[in-house]
C-alpha cells in the first residue's frame, strides 16, 4: 500500500492488495495463526531426511512451535526439500509444489539445494532449486544440524508473522520464467498437470510475466486465457521479496 500522499490525490489506482482497517486486522490475525501452525511435507529423497527425526521427536520437539508433519501436499504449508534433487525427482517436486495450497513455503535443506553440494559435478542433479520453484529459506550445511533447521523455522515463522514470506506469489507472477527454466530440463513440451495460469487468474495473482513465450503451448488446453486482457497486470512491486540475483559464471 502506498503511503505517498501525492499519489492519493487524484485518480489513484486501486491496489489489489489494499485492505480496509478491518481487513488488515484480520490479515494480522491470520498471519499470526499461520506462523504458529505450520504443517510440513517432507520431500525425503536426500540424505537430509536423517536430521528430521531428531528435530521432530523428543530431543528438539518441533510441535512446541506448532509444527506437525503432514503426509499429503494438499494439507501442507511447508515443502521441505531435504537434499539433492535429480532431474526426475525435480519433476515430482514441481508437481507436488503446485498441488499445495497457498500460502505455501519452500525450504531447501542442505548445500545440494543451494549450489549442487557434493553432487556439483553430476549430470543428473539440479544445482539451483530456486530456478524451478520459489524458495523461501535455505539451510546451508552438509548436513545442517537440527539446531540450524530450528533456526530457519523460527526465522520463517517470524517472516510469516510479519507478512513478508510471499515467495509463493512469485510463482504465479513469474510463471513464464519458472516454466521456461523447467522446460530447459524436461523438454519444451513439459506442462504440469495443475493449471497454474488458471489459478493465477482466479486468485488475481497475474503478473507481467505470468504469460509469455514458454506458456504459449498451454493455451490450447485453456481457451479462457484470452480473457486475460480484462485483468490488468499488477505493477511490478516486489517489495516482499527482492528479485534473486543469480550470478552467472
Amino acid at each position, binding site marked *: 500500500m502506498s503511503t505517498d500522499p501525492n499519489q492519493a490525490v487524484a485518480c489513484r489506482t486501486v491496489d489489489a492488495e489494499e485492505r480496509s482497517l478491518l481487513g488488515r486486522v484480520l490479515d494480522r*490475525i*491470520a498471519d499470526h*495463526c*499461520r506462523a*504458529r*501452525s505450520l504443517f510440513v511435507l517432507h520431500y525425503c529423497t536426500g540424505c537430509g531426511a536423517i536430521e528430521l527425526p531428531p528435530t521432530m*521427536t*523428543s530431543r528438539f*520437539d518441533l*510441535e*512446541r512451535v*506448532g509444527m506437525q508433519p503432514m*503426509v*499429503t501436499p*494438499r*494439507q501442507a*504449508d511447508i515443502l521441505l526439500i531435504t537434499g539433492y534433487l535429480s532431474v526426475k525427482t525435480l519433476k515430482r517436486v514441481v508437481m507436488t509444489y503446485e*498441488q499445495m*495450497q*497457498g*500460502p505455501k513455503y519452500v525450504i531447501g535443506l542442505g548445500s545440494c539445494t543451494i549450489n549442487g553440494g557434493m553432487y556439483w559435478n553430476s549430470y543428473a542433479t539440479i544445482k539451483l532449486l530456486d530456478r524451478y520453484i520459489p524458495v523461501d529459506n535455505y539451510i546451508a550445511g552438509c548436513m545442517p544440524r537440527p539446531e540450524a533447521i530450528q533456526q530457519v523455522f523460527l526465522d520463517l515463522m517470524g517472516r510469516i508473522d510479519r507478512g513478508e514470506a510471499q515467495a509463493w506469489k512469485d510463482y504465479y507472477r513469474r510463471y513464464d520464467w519458472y516454466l521456461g527454466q523447467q522446460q530447459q530440463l524436461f523438454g519444451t513440451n513439459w506442462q504440469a498437470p495443475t493449471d497454474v495460469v488458471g*489459478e493465477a487468474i*482466479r*486468485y488475481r495473482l497475474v503478473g507481467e510475466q505470468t504469460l509469455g513465450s514458454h506458456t504459449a503451448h498451454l493455451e490450447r488446453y485453456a481457451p479462457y486465457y484470452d480473457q486475460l486482457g480484462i485483468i490488468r497486470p499488477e505493477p511490478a512491486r516486489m517489495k516482499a521479496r527482492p528479485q534473486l540475483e543469480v550470478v552467472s559464471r
Partner: protein
Amino acid sequence: MDFTHLFVELVLMPLIAFLVGLVMVLMLRKVRAKIERRIGPPLLQPLYDIVKLYSKKTQVSHGPMHEIAMMVALGGVIAMEVFLPVPGLNGLAEKGDLIVLIYLMMIPSLGLALGVGACANPNGSIGISRALTAMVAYDIPLMIVVAGVALFHGTTSLPEIIAAQQAGGMSTWGIVQTPVLALGGLIAAYAMLGKEPFEIYVAPAEIATGPMVEMSGKFMGTLFVMQCFQLYAVGVLYTTLFLGGGEYWISFLPKIFAVVFIPLAMTNVFPRYKTEDVLKWMWKWAGGFALAGLALVVMK
C-alpha cells in the same frame, strides 16, 4: 419451553461442544507429547490450526458435491450435539431419543463418503471404505450396548436415563449397575474415536490419511472442527449412558474428559490393526461384552 429458550439452547450447546472439544484436542496432543517425553503444542494450538486452515488463500474444490457433503458432515455432528443433554441444557433431548442420536451419529461418515467420492483420489476411496467398515465394526457393539441400557432403564429417553442414574448417587450409575455393558461400551467408544489400533482409515503411512487426502484449507478446517465435536460427543454419550450424566458442570466435565482420556492414554503404545482384524476384534470382544451385558440385563 418457549421458543426463545429453545433457540438459546440450540446455539449454546454446539458452542460449548466446540469449546470443550478444542480443549480435548489439545489434551489429545498434549498426552501424546508427554508420553513421548516432548513438551507438546502451546495452549491455543487447536485454534491456531483451525484459523490457519480457514485463512488459506487458495482452495482446491472438487465440485459442488465435495462442498455440500462437507457441510452435511459438519451439520450431522452439530445436530448430534443438540440431542445430547448436558447440565442445565436439554436441547432437543426430550423430543428425540437414543435412536435418533444413533442415526445422527452415522451422518458424518456418510457425508464424508460423499465428499471423498467426489475427490476421485484412490487413497481417499480406500480410506472411506475402511471408515465405513470401521463404522460397521463399532456400531454393532454400540447398538447392543444401547439396547441393553434402554432395556435396563425401560426407556430410550436420555433425560430419563440420566434421572434414573442420579436417583441414588453413585450406586445407581450405569457403570455400577451394568458393568459388563459399560466395558463393551467403552471399547466401542474407543473405536469411535478412530485412534490406534483402530486407526485403519487414517493410516498416514499407508494411505496418506485416507479420507483427508484431498482436503485442503477450509475442508481440512471443517474436519478439524468435526474432530472437536466428535471427541466431545463420545465423551458425553458415554457419560450419559454409564456415568450418571451431569448435574453440575463442575462434576460433568471431569467425567467426559476422563472418558476421552482413557483411550488417549492407551492409544500411543499401539500400532495399527488390519481392517479385517478390527472387524473381528470389535465383534469378538466389544460385541462379546455387549452381548454378555445384555444377557445379564435381560436375566435380572
